[in-house]
């Protein structure tokens, strides 16, 4: 595989007047991305251990093809503050992880999470078995949890609350929740940012700070 500078990659990939050179660069890029993705799937993903090498190779090939198309489409956004191949690998990694998330959460329903009107997991049982504490401290912990629950229920819009519970408490990827909410990941991050700001203001108004929470729940 030819070693190229950033300028050479950009030049070769866009050389429509030299189809041979362009197709060699495309093949090199796809091969490189495919190897990187195969490494990631086979060595870094514990949830892929049951897959055969053949399956992983096929997945890596599919993801690398898609990543190559995305790289070509977004060449204008390469800023040149890293190696071109690092940037292209970032694109490929995102393609692979997005597809894996989609597959993992294909049956996830935001309606199922919020449909019964009870979106909050039971925070009051969240630590009882992890660390026994005295009755006074336990009451204080319950009080703080109650205030956090109340703030989530009262200070947020329904949309903010559903997103916070799904992402923050249930651990569902932003990307998956954004899709279900007919928005994009960046807009969802901003929605959650606003939700966090509201909750911070509400809790601080109630005299609760992060230092206080950490001290109250610290493990001994």
């Amino acid at each position: 595989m030819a070693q190229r500078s950033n300028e050479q990659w950009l030049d070769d990939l866009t050389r429509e007047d030299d189809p041979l050179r362009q197709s060699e660069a495309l093949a090199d890029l796809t091969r490189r991305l495919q190897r990187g993705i195969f490494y990631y799937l086979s060595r870094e993903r514990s949830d892929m251990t049951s897959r055969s090498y053949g399956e992983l190779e096929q997945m890596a090939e599919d993801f690398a093809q898609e990543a190559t198309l995305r790289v070509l489409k977004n060449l204008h956004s390469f800023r040149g503050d890293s190696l071109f191949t690092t940037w292209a690998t970032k694109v490929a990694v995102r393609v692979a992880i997005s597809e894996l998330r989609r597959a993992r959460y294909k049956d996830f329903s935001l309606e199922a999470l919020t449909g019964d009107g009870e979106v909050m997991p039971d925070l009051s049982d969240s630590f009882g078995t992890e660390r026994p504490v005295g009755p006074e401290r336990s009451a204080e912990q319950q009080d703080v949890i109650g205030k956090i629950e109340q703030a989530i229920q009262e200070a947020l819009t329904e949309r903010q609350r559903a997103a916070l519970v799904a992402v923050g408490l249930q651990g569902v990827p932003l990307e998956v929740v954004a899709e279900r909410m007919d928005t994009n990941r960046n807009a969802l991050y901003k929605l959650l940012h606003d939700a966090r700001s509201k909750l911070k203001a509400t809790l601080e108004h109630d005299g609760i700070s992060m230092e206080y929470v950490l001290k109250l729940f610290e493990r001994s």
Partner: protein
Amino acid sequence: MESISLEKLLGIAGAIFSVHEDELDCEGCDAEMPHLAEIIEAGEDPKKLLPAVVAHLEICHDCREEFEALLAVIRAEHSGAVLDAAHGAE
């Protein structure tokens, strides 16, 4: 609904209290990831050079997962582990 862990409760409290007016969003973080990966690989201090990106990665699980994957692949490329994995599959 099922209860959540203390770790998650503290995680969400951390996310609430660490909120900043001028936080980097996911698009901004995505654009900085290649640079950040190379900074870390060069042994430089990411908190000093790209503090907003590091702060976003501490809050955003999606971006953190993608960044950790990028770093792992780049390190494996440098060490030869990517080629070893490819040859192992052949």
